[in-house]
């Protein structure tokens, strides 16, 4: 659905933020975009929303450049930004004004989510806390039912019970027609939702793999003595966890934090193992 090829971006007089980015995003998946601070995650999300334009290369949705900002495309994209200003309107006026831009918007779904987030339609947006405003936008974004839903740090500002609520809502929001892309640092909040990992580093894509290929090729945990030869990356602390070549070991759950650290410290090493094909999954 989304195709990015050879994309480069820099802000005026700034250094290169994104360099030669090529990525594909397909419906039915929840993508997690990770990277250290300043690696261009939010910039990439804005490029995908048509809020910034690539300097080189392209970013297309259904084979059309998003930067053309055609109505047909924009009505199928919704972005929940990290920082935002909302007008001094009540929640229901906000809905009435903005919903018509999204043909598949569901009012029922929106108000159900608003209720689930313990908000009231008559509440003024300006009187809400940051976390509550974010909930309004998340509810709106899901109810908009766009083909592409972009979220930049969606769980920032959410309180403890809302994070679990957010995961439940997201789990029910994915369907085969939707593509969800989330950029975040909050690995723990979203780990169980994401099924594809993209990691940015030094302005490039240094990792782009589905969870299933990661868990097929890598093993996460505390290695026993005889497993030490297979260690690809280990936490430097005593009794720390490590990433190993899985080989014949039993499948483990992907440890995103560990994977991230392993990839950032040595992308080539991890990518080589994942791309190796000589390993027979049934062996």
């Amino acid at each position, binding site marked *: 659905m989304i195709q990015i090829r050879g994309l480069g971006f820099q802000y005026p007089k700034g250094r290169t933020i994104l360099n030669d980015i090529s990525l594909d995003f397909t419906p*039915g998946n929840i993508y997690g975009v990770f990277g250290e601070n300043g690696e261009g995650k939010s910039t990439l999300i804005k490029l995908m929303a048509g809020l910034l334009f690539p300097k080189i290369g392209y970013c297309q949705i259904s084979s059309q450049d998003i930067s053309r900002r055609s109505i047909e495309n924009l009505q199928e994209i919704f972005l929940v930004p990290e920082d935002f200003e909302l007008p001094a309107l009540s929640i229901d006026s906000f809905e009435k004004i903005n919903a018509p831009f999204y043909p598949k918007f569901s009012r029922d779904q929106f108000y159900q989510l608003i209720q689930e987030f313990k908000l009231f339609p008559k509440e003024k947006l300006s009187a809400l806390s940051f976390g509550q405003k974010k909930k309004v936008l998340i509810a709106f974004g899901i109810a908009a039912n766009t083909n592409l839903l972009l979220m930049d740090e969606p769980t920032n500002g959410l309180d403890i019970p809302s994070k679990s609520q957010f995961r*439940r809502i997201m*789990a029910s929001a994915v369907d085969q027609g939707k593509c969800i892309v989330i950029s975040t640092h909050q690995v723990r909040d979203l780990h*169980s939702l994401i099924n594809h990992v993209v990691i940015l580093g030094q302005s490039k894509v240094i990792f782009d793999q589905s969870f299933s290929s990661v*868990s097929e090729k890598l093993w996460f*945990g505390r290695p026993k003595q005889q497993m030490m030869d297979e260690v690809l990356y280990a936490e430097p602390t005593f009794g720390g966890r490590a990433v190993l070549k899985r080989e014949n070991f039993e499948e*483990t*759950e992907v440890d995103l934090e560990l994977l991230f650290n392993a990839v950032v410290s040595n992308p080539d090493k991890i990518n080589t193992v994942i791309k190796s094909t000589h390993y027979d999954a049934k062996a």
Partner: protein
Amino acid sequence: MDFDNGKPIYLQIVDFFYENILIRKWQENERIPSVREVAVMVEVNPNTASRAFTHLQELEVIYNKRGIGYFVSEKGYHTVLEIKKKEFIGVRLPDMFKEMMLLDVEFEEVKNSYDQYVKNVSDEKK
């Protein structure tokens, strides 16, 4: 649901199914929650939940009626019992034996403790 760190989430969902079947919460030929309902319940990506369903279907613990949903198989309970027994004897017991040797616990002590436990349980039932 609290996920244990090492085990793949889909297998933890499988365990959750096993438990419901073993305590007879989900009976034979009874309809169980859908993939989506399970995904929401345990807060995971529906693809992960769907993998648990596929796994259970391959083991013939559950079956699918097209357009209606998933059901516990006729032999679902027995299949689960076999699987969990094998796991207990093959994995949990050796761990326990290892610990018994390490702590020098006699088998006799374990037996007494077990008999006492069985007695307590049957007393409670009365």
